[in-house]
């Protein structure tokens, strides 16, 4: 099938029947009513919108802080082995009492 011809035919059909320019009754009144209506502010919607807007900056600050903390924290000194650590913890009260 000649697709070029088909396309031309379809376009010709579309050109031959332009869409209607009919306007619903008193449509301009409806728009004017919208334009002149007092502005009502939905506080919760505004709050929600601001919260959503704050998400990206908060995430960036959090990421930057994370990177900064990782970069500046020095590695902890080697901890004693588990056995030694338990012993130190258990006997620390005796040391305090002995003093």
């Amino acid at each position, binding site marked *: *099938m000649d697709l070029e011809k088909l396309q031309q035919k*379809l376009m010709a059909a*579309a050109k031959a029947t332009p869409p209607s*320019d009919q306007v619903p009754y008193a449509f301009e009144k409806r728009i004017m009513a919208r334009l002149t209506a007092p502005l009502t502010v939905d506080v919760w919607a505004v709050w929600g919108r601001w919260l959503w807007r704050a998400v990206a900056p908060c995430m960036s600050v959090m990421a930057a802080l994370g990177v900064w903390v990782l970069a500046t924290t020095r590695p902890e000194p080697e901890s004693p082995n588990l056995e030694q650590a338990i012993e130190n913890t258990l006997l620390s009260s005796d040391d305090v009492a002995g003093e």
Partner: protein
Amino acid sequence: MEPSDTELIAAVRKGDVQQFETLITRYQPRVFATARRYARREDEVQDIVQEVFIKAFQKLDSFRAEAPFEHWLMRMAVRTCYDFLRSHQRNRETTLTDLSDPEVDWLERFAAGPEDNSKNTDAARALVERVMAQLSPEARLVITLLEIEDRSVKEIARLTGWSVPLVKVRAFRARAQMKKILETLTREKYL
């Protein structure tokens, strides 16, 4: 004598909002006709037209009167229609498989004799609508302005805010996309 657009706009800018109604009454038929090229349902068409005039009212201060008000308004209308197409891209209802009998009939008659199917333009129009609904928003806009409304590339660039080379590229892609859709359409119907 009716006040000119410039007079009406000046009055609205000074605070006489009611004068905007005359501008709406004057241009709404053209905006309705434009919106009906892109939206099928009447409630969608009305929403588009309403949005166009509300935007025009809100941006009236940016109107520089370098071009007629009508051109400025139609640019806004075309851009609003494009936004509508983009936002409704996902819920396109029509498919190529459920053609109606008159549409199939029209295609069959075209296949039998491409020169002889001037009858039943309603079926042809329905087919156009079906094909256009399959196009991407950019392609649909370009095909409508270029092929159906016979506008020049420069005019399309002005209406859409795209550059001239971008319009040309999009027109090329739109035609290719349309050809592909027509291929699918005819293949599915074994014509």
